[in-house]
């Protein structure tokens, strides 16, 4: 039952965040907000990349090697093929392989 409550809370807060700008800025969008709307998405994606890699331990075996190698694979595939799908699948495969081999 507690789980159902927590799921409802996650759903409600997520929806509120998505809807808030539409509720608050109903009439017109200030120039500053439009500017943020343009430059924030790439910055936030950069933030998410670091967020996902935050558990790497560079000083402890395996020194973050599986993550870094798989990340390099994703970047390389994206530059080469420009297909997010191919990049995600190959990077994940490299990661799943490396954590079994390197550890």
């Amino acid at each position, binding site marked *: 039952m*507690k*789980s159902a*409550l*927590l*799921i*409802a*809370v*996650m759903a409600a*807060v*997520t*929806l509120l*965040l*998505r*809807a*808030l*700008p*539409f509720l608050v800025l109903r009439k017109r*969008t200030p120039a*500053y*907000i439009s*500017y*943020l*709307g*343009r*430059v*924030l*998405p*790439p*910055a*936030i*994606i*950069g*933030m*998410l*990349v*670091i*967020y*996902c*890699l*935050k*558990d790497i331990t560079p000083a402890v075996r395996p020194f973050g090697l599986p*993550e870094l190698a*798989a*990340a390099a694979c*994703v*970047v390389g595939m*994206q*530059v080469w093929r*420009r*297909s*997010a*799908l191919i*990049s*995600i*699948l190959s*990077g*994940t495969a490299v*990661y*799943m392989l490396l954590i*079994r081999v390197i550890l």
Partner: protein
Amino acid sequence: MKKRTVQQAFLKSVPVMAGYLVLGTGFGILMRNAGYGVLWAASMSLLIYAGSMQYVGVGLLTGGASVLTVILTTVMVNARHLFYSISMLGRYRDAGKYKPYMIFALTDETYSLLCDGEVPEGVDANLYRFLVSLFNHSYWVAGGILGNLLGAVLPFSTAGIEFSMTALFIASFTEQWLSSGDHLPALTGLLSTLLCLLVFGKESFLIPAMLLITGILTLLRRREEAAP
């Protein structure tokens, strides 16, 4: 016109299909491993519909987090959606009856498909954006159900499947970098967050990072707006 709109929306959503099936399946498997069955996984994918939050949410459920912790964590993990909505204000303004659902379903991926504002010729723009959102949502829910059911019978270990989420963001970052001549916002996000991670530690760096990013981008405004 309606048939063409459905067709074009489906084609647009195809690149997200496999990504969502993989990521959604990963989520379904995590839920299975945490002891939650298919109804739980499906409800979360249907009602929350936010990938990274659902991955984090599995930990919150199993760790028995408090309601307050869940609220704060959701705000931190999903605060970026504020910015997606902000940049879609103009485009979604006149979406009429489709608007509430489109706002609910504005995920990272749906945003990345629709944020350039391009709509194919001869389609109803609002219906088109609504359907792209709906197709993506259905892949996500299907993945959650599939992963939860298959997770129990897969003959091999699925450890590491969670990297698909990291890979998704790295791919988006790279694609964004390749398609834009202005790398300053992307670098600001990457380096500010890295700095905050080193200074504040991995438990509490996300909010300082968001503040620092917003601050730096505000200072850069004159320069950025002068750029072509």
